């Protein structure tokens, strides 16, 4: 699975993009975030405040119950501020 980080999430995690192999118990966005927090201290710190994190799966905004699968493009980022 391809993970993308934007804005301060990118800065805190320390990378813009990573390729991960999804363990079988991770089935949805909430599970993915839980699992990611265990990857490193930086991940744990960056993903601490879930209220400040938005998720897109395959370029659509989704909620915590949205399923994730091997092969998805999952992006994590703070609330957007365009315009």
């Amino acid at each position, binding site marked *: 699975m391809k993970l*993308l980080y*934007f*804005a*301060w999430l990118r800065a805190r995690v320390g990378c813009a993009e990573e390729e991960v192999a999804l363990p079988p118990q991770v089935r949805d966005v909430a599970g993915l975030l839980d699992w990611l927090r265990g990857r490193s201290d930086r991940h744990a710190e960056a993903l601490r405040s879930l209220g400040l994190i938005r998720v*897109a799966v395959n*370029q659509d*905004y989704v909620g915590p119950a949205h399923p994730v699968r091997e092969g998805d493009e999952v*992006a994590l*980022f*703070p*609330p*957007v*501020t*365009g*315009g």
Partner: protein
Amino acid sequence: MIRLQREDFDVGAELERLTAGNHRIGGVASFIGLVRDMGGSDRVFALTLEHYPGMTERKLAEIEAEARRRWPLDAVLVIHRYGRLKPGDRIVLVATASPHREAALEACHFLIDWLKTDAPFWKSETTSVGERWVEARTEDDAARERWTPPL
């Protein structure tokens, strides 16, 4: 039409092109967003816009389609810049053209409101007290909500 670019744009030429040859159009509404030199109480020297390539184009196209579904529009243009900008620089141009003035005005307002909350851009300010990410504003969410559910 949607354009995402680093370069500046020529507002007069873009608006001219939008209506060229179409004499059904009675009104063109537009909005230009500019970089301000203040962020809260701090001086801003530069604003850097980051976006999510691929998703940004997709979201902008969805927002355009939604506006066209709600109002009778002969032309829609959204140009959004990214990269490092200075105070006074143009960030975004939204323009709508319609036979009817109200349709053009409302659709333009709608587009900029939705773009603020739905297009995946993030802004970082270079200020007198350092670099910092601009936070999303709850007012922007409220402005977007004004347009839902569909008319």
